[in-house]
């Protein structure tokens, strides 16, 4: 019986097969890449209802992180400040600025300012700010140089690999607890010790032992 298709059609079949195979591979690779937290989460920079500049307040004016995020060292959550905190200064500084209209309105009506959440952990992850800050992990380790950001974006992937890397080897990220909000802190070269060595000393002194088992973070 004569062949229905010429012999050359075999090649087309092979090419087609290869294309489907490559396509699937590309699809898997693409999916893996584009859903990876370093790609999908880092750089997230939503528009905030009030154009608040961390660069101006924390960087140039030198406000300490604790001034506004006052619960980080005593609670699991680093609370976003109440409108009242803004008004501590802004009744005097730029009291008429149109950019602060929402802040003044919130203060007058009692309605909260709807800040957009940037650093987002899944519901099954229980991160405790107090524990980290008390141990000497700086804000910068997870949030980056906030003092240089006009509008805040997510700098670190904050995925499980990111957390575990530090929990397995915390030394580079541990510093004296009183310096956690000094985002540009570098060890004094005169001391002759780098950040890791300082971290190791603190770990030994405080007996830091970050958990790496599941219930350390998942409950």
């Amino acid at each position, binding site marked *: 019986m004569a062949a229905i298709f010429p012999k050359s059609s075999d090649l087309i079949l092979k090419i087609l097969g290869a294309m489907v195979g490559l396509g699937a591979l590309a699809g898997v690779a693409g999916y893996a890449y584009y859903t990876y937290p370093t790609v999908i989460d880092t750089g997230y920079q939503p528009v905030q209802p009030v154009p608040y500049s961390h660069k101006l307040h924390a960087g140039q004016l030198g406000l300490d992180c604790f001034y506004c995020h006052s619960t980080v060292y005593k609670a*699991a959550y680093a609370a976003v400040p109440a409108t009242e905190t803004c008004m501590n200064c802004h009744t005097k500084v730029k009291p008429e600025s149109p950019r602060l209209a929402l802040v003044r309105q919130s203060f007058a009506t009692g309605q909260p300012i*709807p800040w957009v959440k940037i650093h987002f952990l899944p519901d099954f992850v229980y991160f405790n700010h107090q524990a980290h800050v008390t*141990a000497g992990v700086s804000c910068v380790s997870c949030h980056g140089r906030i003092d240089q950001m006009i509008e805040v974006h997510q700098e670190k992937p904050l995925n499980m690999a990111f957390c575990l890397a530090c929990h397995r080897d915390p030394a580079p990220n541990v510093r004296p607890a009183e310096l956690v909000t000094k985002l540009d802190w570098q060890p004094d070269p005169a001391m002759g010790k780098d950040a890791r060595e300082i971290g190791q000393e603190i770990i030994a002194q405080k*007996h830091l032992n970050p958990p790496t088992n599941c219930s350390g973070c998942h409950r």
Partner: protein
Amino acid sequence: MSLISIKTGNATGAKYWRSLDQLAGTAEFRQWLEREFPAGASEMLDGQSRRNVLKVMAASFGLAGLAACRRPVEHILPYAKAVEDLIPGQAYYYSSVMTLGGQATGLLIETHDGRPTKIEGNPDHPVSLGAATAMQQASILGLYDPDRSARFLENGAETKKSWPEFQAYLKGISLGDGSGLRFLSDAVISPSLAAVRADALKKYPKAKWVEFETFSRENERAGAVLAFGDAFEVHPQFDKAKVIVALDSDFLGLDSASPLPTKQFSKRRRVGSEEDLDRINRLYAVESQFSITGANADHRLRMKAAEVKQLAIDLAASLGALQGLNIVGGGDKRAKFLAAMVKDLKSAGAEALVVAGPRQPASVHALAALINQSLGSAAVSYVKPEKAEPGIDSGLAGLKTLTADMNSGQVSTLVILGGNPVYTAPADLQFAAALAKVANSIHLGLEEDETAASAKWHVPGAHYLETWSDARSTDGTVAIQQPMIDTMYGGKSPAQMVAMITGAKDQKAYDIVKNFWTSQWPAKDREKIWRKSVHDGIIAGVKPVEAAKASVDAKKLAAAIAAEPKASTDGVEVSFVASSATWDGRFANNAWMQEAPDPMTKLTWGNAALMSPATARAQSLTDGDIVTLSRGSYKMEAAVLIQPGQADQAVTISLGYGRAKCGRVGRDVGFNANLIRVSDSPWFASGFSVAPTGKKFKHASTQEHGTIDDKGVNAEHQNSRPVYREVSIEEYKKNPKAIEEMSEIPELQSIYPERVYDQGYQWGMAIDLTACTGCNACVVACQAENNIPVVGKEQVTRGREMHWIRMDRYYVGPEDDPRAVEQPVPCMQCENAPCENVCPVAATTHSPEGLNDMAYNRCVGTRYCLNNCPFKVRHFNFLNFHKHEPELEGMVYNPDVTVRMRGVMEKCTYCVQRIQETRIKAKNEGRRAIKDGEIVTACQQTCPADAIVFGNINDPNSRVTKLKKQERNYAMLAELDIRPRTTYLAKLRNENPELA
């Protein structure tokens, strides 16, 4: 269960059995034993073919793909003006008090960001002592009940009208001197409400106020009148008694709305040292139904409720306390039981205590008082109640008079303050018909219930967690009821309602309570005392009640009892008890309570006509047969459940079911026993006929769920590895190794490398089976703490209930008259956990502190772990049980615990969120050591018997280590080399050698 299999009796020879099916070894039972779930349990959904499901799934995947392109925007909403000292996300605890059945129990309520999430007992409150019952725990769900009354009803129909229109309506009623005005409320134990009431009765001198509770102590008071010639409250102190006789009294269970009796009783049940063995109490129970008091009794005698009176007479006469009444010789067992009790009570003297149950008539209470007096018992005291003011009527008699007045047209305005009399009133009163004759009937309530539908007006009430009040407990302590949240639907408290009617100056609940108390205090300290009282939950300086002298005139009492007409005990007796789930029906819409298995019957989602195997056999009845119970013109239909240990010819049925007008959860669940309950015999009555209807009903019972195979590989050796162990004290003293010797543990070798657990904290738990009463408080506390879903009746029948603590109830002995024991079974946190090495995705792994961690987000739902768990304590989310949950109900969740999705396995983790919280706290406080007892698991915290102890087993001085050193400590299924961290302290039975 078929009739034939009952007849075969103990075919399997099991010593500890859970059901008659197990005893007979039926195929249905073997399924529960051998399979992970019964056949068909893995079917996904009803009424939807698999194909349909796949279609739906494909569609939702498509949508999910699109939706996932955009990251969901979440907002952070801080306060505009900060609240001083409030840290967002932190849990805060506030004191309050809950009133149930005329009893006040002080509570501590955990709130997260302004929403109450969990209820615990207030350790400073003398009636709670830190414990809370299952109902108190579950009452928080009532606050977030989406079916709660949120609107006004006029003539039973929805109306747009609200408080202003209602107030106008009130103004339109001319009350005059109040001759047509009646109030109907629950028992008033709130001093501020009593003050408001006094004002109302002063303004309307001819008005009347009726207090009515379904489960009240009025028989006890009537008994005191009979015995002492005056009304007294009886205050038993179970911790002072060595020999206790409970005459139809379920004081450990449903006859007490507070955890206090269990707290007191268990004080002398916990054995910490050798001396405690001689302090341990002995409990005799005489009852018709099998209550948890009967289960915890060292000796139990079953008899019809109507026969208890004669036993009390015989007991009093045998003790020489009563002359002139003949001792009626009963059967052999009864005579022996009586003789043993008499001897024991006599030797206990001041440490003897006889208590009569609230369902027993006045004469039994009087006899109990007489016996206690003749024995010189120091374990009971009598308190003179506050004199009832004129115009106040109470109890069933009060309700009867009220109904008569309503029928004769004397009542023009009836204000019902809480309660649901249309449903709870005995059938012969025909309350609904009488209510229809009242021109102005106003119902203030939390639910749109039967009464709300029949009243002219229904107005929403305030839940106790959202309004101010106060409550006096039996010992005189007054606690402030502090709201945790603002009223969600603008509901009002009973005191506010009365104040509105009288037009009093104080209209706000806060003002009513605060001004009532502060006006009694010196002006300069008012604010200080008030703040302290609200903080502590107890008003300082309120005098506790004082015991009064009371003595019984034995001759008069004998004459009075001799003159009483002899009640007939012929025919079938039906007795009515409170429901362990719904109480008198008020928790019917509470899903936690509906799904909590009854401690004895293990029924969920419903009640049943309980009868003994012999009674059922005589009528050829089996489980689930619907019968008609009738007497005269009163009848009801109910499904039969065979209850081993039930008195013969006696049917027990719990009230609080079969609610016609109720929310989505409780509507038409179970059978309404109020239909056959009449006011002259409200608790038990003889002469009922039981007629089969030929219809069948499916009970949702959990008694066979999670059955552990106690025969092991050696099937020919019965009970070669008993999971429940008990020993009599005599035997234990002779041979302390008796518990250990119950199973033979071969030399064990693990194929896995040995893990060493000698560093840091090593968590462990000990559960004392001698103290545990099986009351269910831990089951519900665990549910509240760990966001455990409710699955519904249909899913329970498939064995899918999710409770992390399974309360196993075993019977021991013959099917007609067995003993019963209770055993809470949580995850054992095995050191060599069989679940861990079969998990393909490492979702369950071991922590360095010995916890069997469960990472929900990792679980893919293979269920291998459950299959490999010898205790069957892992639970699988077959469906997304949170899917159809209204948003409001989600407010009750504990934010410290993940809410699990469909397809995820879950189990007890020793409340790891509490461990971590305390660990972080200790670390932040300079990395100090965690103190023993600093971490308490939710079950341990609420256990009224203090039977659960958790702690660091690496610390030789911790309580748990010391308990585990006792000889009676045993690990369940230790033969498997799984090394459970949770171990049991075997039950010590304080048997009377003469009855053994």
